[in-house]
């Protein structure tokens, strides 16, 4: 069974049944899943979760759909890695990386899609669709293939080659649109009205989809021994992930899984070439002006973020901050994480790490805090961004002479290669 009581508008509190609805018919505010927290508190236990599968479905009670056989490729339960070498470089103390590159299709989107399509199938949908900057396209195409659903994914035409190939390989329909992600998103929002029998995971079933991101908080808390961190750094595109990470920690306490009330500072990371929410934060305004994105971090290139306003409120009320970083800083961030911790992130991960570095230098992220940085997509998806700056140290003929002439690696046995 699930503990869902229905859907509720975040703006005007009107209630709706748990159907394929994403906005309030009256005020167009976003609908959110409402749960019976009292019943959850009486039912859910750490022991039950700990004996569950090594996937997001160990938290099924706290998700908006109950199904003995969810549409599942094994999303979730990704490593939480203590990052001492990176912490030392940044002057931080206890730093952890939530390595969500380790998901089945290489990004956190497997979490939200597994939830969304399981619910969509339960609601009777046979077509899985989405508007995507790439990672979501991968996850929808793969999960739909596994479930035997038809997939129709819409992407901007100029996406990274890897993200197009890793979507198309699953055999669904891939529609490349001549425009930005915001154009694709507008098209899909309009198509939803004309194709009500299609489940657009981030439009008409977005209410359920978004809830999948709570598992990013659930897992971190469980991996830290059922404790919340002091500060999290989350990349921001639509802003949904950030708000749901914050909600995840709050919810764990509400249902009695955390002993202490969490006070997690939530900070948001954006690329300078697409920073509508960071700009509103810096200007101290509530008005998020849409922008035309121009950044190497294409997975974060949403100029008109649906949950930007909520992400802004979440960051402000938690005592966190927003920062934005340039393309050069993003690529430096990717290399810094790879060099210090052996984790290869896509450009969005570079945004997270570069923002972490910036906030650490500003003293916003502090040495006395337990910090978790969310790295949510794999570097192999965006290798194009690095081909001009990363490559062989040297190219030689296959002879000893050539090697000795060209290569002089000074290895300190204790400290490793320098």
């Amino acid at each position, binding site marked *: 069974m699930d503990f869902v009581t229905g859907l509720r508008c975040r*703006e005007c509190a009107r209630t709706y049944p748990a159907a394929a609805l994403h906005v309030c018919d009256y005020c167009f505010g976003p609908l959110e899943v409402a749960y019976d927290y009292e019943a959850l508190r009486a039912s859910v236990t750490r022991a039950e979760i700990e004996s569950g599968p090594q996937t997001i479905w160990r938290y099924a009670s706290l998700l908006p759909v109950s199904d003995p056989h969810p549409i599942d490729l094994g999303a979730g339960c990704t490593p939480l890695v203590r990052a001492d070498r990176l912490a030392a470089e940044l002057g931080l103390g206890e730093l952890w990386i939530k390595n969500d590159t380790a998901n089945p299709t290489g990004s956190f989107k497997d979490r939200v899609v597994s939830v969304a399509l399981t619910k969509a199938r339960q609601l009777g949908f046979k077509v899985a669709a989405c508007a995507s900057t790439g990672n979501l396209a991968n996850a929808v195409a793969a999960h739909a293939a596994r479930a035997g659903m038809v997939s129709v994914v819409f992407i901007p035409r100029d996406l990274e080659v890897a993200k197009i190939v890793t979507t198309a390989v699953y055999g669904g329909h891939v529609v490349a649109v001549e425009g930005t992600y915001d154009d694709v998103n507008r098209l899909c*929002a309009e198509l939803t009205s004309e194709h009500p029998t299609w489940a657009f995971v981030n439009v008409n079933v977005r209410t359920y989809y978004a809830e999948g991101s709570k598992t990013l908080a659930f897992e971190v808390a469980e991996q830290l021994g059922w404790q919340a961190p002091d500060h999290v750094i989350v990349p921001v595109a639509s802003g949904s992930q950030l708000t749901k990470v914050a909600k995840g920690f709050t919810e764990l306490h509400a249902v009695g899984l955390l002993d202490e009330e969490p006070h997690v500072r939530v900070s948001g990371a954006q690329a300078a070439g697409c920073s509508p929410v960071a700009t509103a934060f810096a200007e101290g305004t509530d008005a998020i002006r849409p922008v035309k994105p121009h950044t190497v971090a294409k997975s974060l290139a949403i100029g008109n973020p649906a949950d930007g306003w909520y992400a802004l409120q979440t960051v402000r009320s938690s005592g966190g901050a927003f920062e934005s970083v340039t393309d050069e800083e993003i690529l430096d961030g990717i290399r810094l994480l790879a060099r210090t911790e052996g984790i290869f992130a896509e450009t969005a991960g570079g945004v997270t790490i570069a923002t972490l570095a910036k906030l650490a230098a500003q003293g916003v992220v502090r040495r006395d805090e337990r910090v978790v940085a969310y790295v949510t997509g794999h570097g192999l998806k965006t290798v194009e961004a690095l081909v001009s700056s990363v490559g062989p140290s040297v190219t030689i003929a296959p002879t000893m002479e050539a090697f000795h002439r060209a290569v002089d690696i000074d290895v300190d046995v204790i400290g490793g290669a320098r």
Partner: protein
Amino acid sequence: MSVSVRVPAQLRTLTGGEAHVAVEGATVGAVLKALDVAHPGFADRIFDTDGTLRRFVNVFLADEDVRFLDGLDTPVADGQTLSIVPAVAGG
């Protein structure tokens, strides 16, 4: 100017189920006001009490967000299409 307005599913109860409605107006704001006259209830749903568009309503003229143009003051040309689209989507 006659403009075709694309109506999202959420508002089609106001148009008797019609997805496209033709109305007259010289600006985006005038078109939306004319829409409310032709199909009472629109203004209440898409405008805040101060007359600005609600936070979660996006309006596109010929597929361009009017916030990149002159907002409600954007002039419209005969035969253009205006879309009302819920903002909560994507990401």
